[in-house]
């Protein structure tokens, strides 16, 4: 009963945030609404007992991704100006609808096909320690691959951002 109620609240929060992110005119407002969605998702993880995932969601998505998004908006000068006055559906809306319907289909298909446990309460409690051991044990290779990928991306970003004259010097 209680879980259902909390889930409902969080679901509404998440959906409203997502909807606002899609329809608001001001780009910064959209970004802020998006972070509301992130918070809703994180809280859902937490309510399911997945502490590590929930808190990482906040740390990564609120602390980094949302900030990245607003910085990107500010640095590309979209912050102050409102988008032109027209409905969201005005231009290219068909394409948008097709894309979202396609994504929706994929998600529903995945949900339906994946085997769910009979009841949500049966999920085993996973401690942080266990996650750590799993990452350092059986999954160490994927972890390292991801780490290398991220490092490469980081170095690439630095090189892209480097001023031209310094690049030539190197």
């Amino acid at each position, binding site marked *: 009963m209680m879980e259902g109620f909390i889930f409902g609240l969080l679901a509404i929060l998440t959906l409203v945030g997502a909807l606002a992110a899609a329809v608001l005119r001001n780009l910064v407002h959209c970004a*802020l609404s998006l972070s509301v969605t992130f918070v809703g998702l994180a809280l859902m993880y937490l309510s399911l007992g997945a502490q590590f995932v929930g808190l*990482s969601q906040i740390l990564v998505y609120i602390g980094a991704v949302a900030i990245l998004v607003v910085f990107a908006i*500010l640095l590309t000068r979209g912050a102050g100006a409102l988008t032109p006055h027209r409905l969201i559906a005005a231009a290219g809306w068909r394409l948008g609808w097709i894309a979202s319907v396609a994504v929706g289909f994929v998600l529903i298909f995945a949900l339906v096909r994946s085997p769910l446990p009979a009841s949500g309460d049966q999920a085993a409690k996973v401690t942080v320690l266990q996650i750590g051991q799993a990452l350092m044990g059986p999954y160490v290779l994927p972890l390292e691959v991801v780490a290398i990928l991220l490092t490469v991306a980081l170095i690439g970003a630095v090189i892209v951002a480097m001023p031209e004259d310094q690049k030539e010097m190197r």
Partner: protein
Amino acid sequence: MNSATLDQFFVLLQHHLSALFPTVLQPWVSMILGVVGIVAVFPAIFALTTVLERKGLGRMQNRLGPNRVGPFGILQPIADAIKSLTKEDIVPRSADDVVHFLAPVVLVVAIFLGYAVLPVGRNMVLLNIDAGILLFFAVGASTELSIFMAGWSSRNKYSLLGAMRAVAQMISYEVPLLLAAVVAVMMAGSLAPTAIVQAQGGFTGIFPHWYVFTPWGFAGFALFVVAALAETNRSPFDLPEGESELVAGYFTEYSGFKFALFFLGEYLGMMSIAGYGITLFLGGWGAPFSFLTFIPSWAWFFAKLFLAIFFFIWLRGTLPRLRQDQLMNFAWKFMLPLSLLNLCVAAAWRFLGECLGSGTVAEVMRWLVCAAVLVLAYILLARTLLRRQNIRPRSYRYAD
């Protein structure tokens, strides 16, 4: 009342009070009591801190500080509160008023969340969860967003510049802050603050097993303190609100109670980060000497907290502030390598402990090797960085 009851006084109080309610409600009442405790105690300390800061700064500057309201000016925060509550709340006409309003609220809520997993005494933690330290960093990261909201919604160049600076600074220093904290997590083998405090609980002779007394612990603590200063925008890293350049940074356009909320948030953030520093490296609520354990644990925690706050005030009274690019250089070129090295040293400490055995000679050897590596790295890195920027003491010639 013996020392054990005194130690557990607040825990027992919570139990007895919640026992007055029906069993179904008891966990809720107990939780609400805990929340009320945090929401009451830390803002009270904040009020005390503001007056202590002003008086302490005053004393460092050969003056008295506030001395008009109440005896020795101790009631000054009440006067300040009344002032900020009765002041007109000005929102600039072009400001984005919803975001402008939400920014301080989000900030204070996020910072209060951080206190949920902070152990302020034996058994005195609101939420004893596995990933407590992670929660602290998660909510710490989300304050950045509220600072951005404040700066952006004010539609003021100084505000926006201040917010951009603040966010860039906080993101940069979050990395060394996390890496410095990870050392303690590694050694304790747990992300739970209570477990970390317990891991530092023992005594050798009269001295405690605080992490700060090991080479990696000391380095980690120093790095944590520096990163914490930057994370909370305290001097010498107070550029986001550097008044000589940016008037008041991201809260330039705030007045009245909203301004007070930012102020509250800033100090609460400072206290919470100090509390985590104490938990991670200074033995949390543990006594500093074995013969002092009769003093209640919470008293030790708050004593350490006040010492930490005094240290922050002391630094503020002494140091000028850095420049933005220097701040970034310092974070990425100095703090980050050192904290990564410290991570390796901590790992080495652990393995050396297993390899060398447990004799006194082995202990001393391990200690010396780890300390030497860190000190050497510190000196080399600092020298190189300063030399590259051509910063050195100078001598002057005279003409007659």
